[in-house]
């Protein structure tokens, strides 16, 4: 089972990284979903909170986790209420708490509130936040939360969707799970498709085999682009992901293939742009997001993100120059040195640059501010140039100064 938070790290491997014999161990449930385009976890918390509670209990029982903290994004009060009711019911019924169902298995699940900070979705920032501090990611390696996490103890941080899979897995068995999807991407996953499609929504798809074309054009899914328009581009895996164009539509939801094609599946959020979309403006909305959400620890992200935003805003406003385009790539290089992943383009005669990238920051917020700019500039440079003011001569028109 691959983690469903965004990195796609195998959940079982993560559990196995805890040092033997070191207790207490904690489970922190990551319900701080805020990646642009993503909202599967909110639905899972609002619509099936009991499934999540069961998942927490299974994880705690299996991995010897002494206390569970369920961290829900602050801006989701409905999810808070639904999960609170589910937990209150579960406590009343003896399914959570002391001596569960009369056994020696005892664990509390504590509902915790966030307060609005995208970066807290990063697992070490989540732990910092849960310790009552500013949500600034910790440097890793050397120590991952499984070794040194909450209060310095071994801690498993799992995404809501990951844990919500556990009850089904336990009842139906691993074989039934791996029978769905492919060997490297088993099971189903939830994806949110938004933007210019006929029927946007959150869909559960078969992992590894469903293609972007199935999802965007399939009758049971999004039913094509609105108003019969042409597809121009789409973001395949949350706002941090490099963009795809119609050329990549036949790729399946398979991490390795999508990585080789120059992007990532991330948090399962697809944002679709039709041919009417102003690409530089669309890129600006994402860059502005990541610039605003920088926690400020790493200079390349703190300064680079806002700088990118300001330059891009200037270009969008029609006050940019050609030097601004080069400047944006240069700022990006300071966040992500070397080749940055992007999709292939037959139109431009470009081959894909595969994942991953190098980065000069602790977490992925900085690179995420650059990703939309890089994709848009690489795949749609003509649209930026159309907005550039050509300053080829000095704009003065002074008559010959007085003849004496």
């Amino acid at each position, binding site marked *: 089972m691959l983690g469903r938070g965004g990195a796609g790290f195998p959940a079982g491997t993560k559990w196995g990284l805890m040092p033997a014999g070191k*207790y*207490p161990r*904690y489970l922190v449930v990551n319900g701080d979903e*805020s990646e*642009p*385009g*993503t*909202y599967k*976890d*909110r639905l899972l918390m609002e619509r099936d909170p009991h499934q999540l509670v069961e998942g927490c209990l299974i994880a705690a029982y299996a991995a*010897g986790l002494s*206390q569970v903290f369920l961290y829900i*994004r*602050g*801006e*989701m*009060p409905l999810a*808070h*209420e639904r999960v*609170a*009711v589910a937990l*209150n019911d579960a*406590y*009343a019924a003896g399914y959570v*708490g*002391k001596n569960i169902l*009369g*056994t*020696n*298995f*005892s*664990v*509390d699940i*504590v509902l*915790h*509130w*966030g*307060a609005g*900070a*995208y970066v807290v979705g990063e697992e070490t920032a989540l732990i910092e936040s*849960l*310790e*009552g*501090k*500013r*949500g600034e990611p910790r440097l890793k390696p050397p120590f991952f939360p499984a070794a040194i996490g*909450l*209060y310095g103890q071994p801690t498993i941080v799992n995404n809501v969707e990951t844990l919500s899979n556990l009850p089904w897995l336990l009842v139906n068995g691993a074989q039934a799970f791996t029978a769905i999807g492919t060997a490297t991407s088993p099971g189903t996953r939830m994806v949110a498709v938004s*933007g*210019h499609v006929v029927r*946007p929504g*959150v869909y559960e798809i078969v992992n590894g085999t469903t293609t972007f074309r199935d999802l965007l054009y399939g009758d049971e899914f999004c039913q094509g682009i609105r108003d019969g328009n042409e597809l121009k581009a789409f973001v395949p895996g949350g*706002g941090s992901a490099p963009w795809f164009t119609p050329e990549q539509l036949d790729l399946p939801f398979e991490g390795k293939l999508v990585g080789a094609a120059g992007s990532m599946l991330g948090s399962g959020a697809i*944002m679709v742009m039709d041919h009417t*979309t102003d690409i530089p403006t669309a890129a600006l*909305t*994402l860059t502005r*997001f990541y610039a*605003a*959400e920088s926690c400020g620890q790493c200079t390349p992200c703190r300064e680079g993100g806002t700088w990118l935003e300001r330059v891009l805003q200037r270009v969008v406003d029609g006050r940019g120059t050609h030097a601004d385009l080069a400047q944006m790539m240069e700022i990006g290089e300071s966040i992500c040195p070397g080749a940055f992943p992007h999709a292939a383009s037959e139109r431009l005669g470009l081959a894909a640059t595969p994942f991953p990238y190098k980065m000069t920051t602790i977490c992925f917020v900085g690179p995420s501010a650059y990703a939309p700019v890089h994709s848009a500039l690489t795949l749609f440079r003509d649209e930026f140039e159309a907005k550039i003011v050509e300053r080829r001569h000095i704009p003065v028109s002074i008559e010959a100064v007085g003849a004496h």
Partner: protein
Amino acid sequence: MGRGRAPAGGGRRRGPQSRLNEANVILAKEIIGRYPKARSATIPLLHLSQQQNGYVTNDAIAHVAELVGATSAEVLGTATFYEMFKFEPVGKYLVNICGTMSCQLLGADDLMHHAEARLGVRAGGTTADGMFTLEHAECQAACTEAPNMQVNYRHCHRMTTAAFDQLIDDLAAGRLDGEIPPHGTLARIRQQIPADKAAGVAPPDAPVEPAWMLAPEATS
């Protein structure tokens, strides 16, 4: 921010009264008791103070610091990191219009322009009657229902300018009081952990291997 005007009076009290009241201190202690370290309760208690006062006051910061065993500076440092905490009075209703990608693609800019005109304030401002604070917001996790906004963090999906006007009229007339509590109140239902059912905290300095790991028992 900046252009917002503080609501006049309106029950939002400053001064010593903005420490947590007696009932909330009891609740605060119960919340603190759920964590192995008190400081973990910082954010929940800041929310509690914001629920009481509408925003986070200096007194509340000092009081939360006392309760969780931190300094006021530490609590302020934490509080200012998070967008939801407000340090000056805001309207009874915080209107957050999402402007991130999917909402922008489907008309968020027009919605914001309309909202500014309708409320007579720019994004970041509060109406003179103290009813509404308008803010630009980032992704609200409802992208398939774009353009989207929240009032006191309650989602409003697929907004149009007409729906916005109707919503503002309804809020002003008190027709949505049952659905949308005043700013500061998040979830109206809290988690309850009855004392006799609690497994108890797992302190980091008590290296106890869980009983069920040592001797697993079959459930009935």
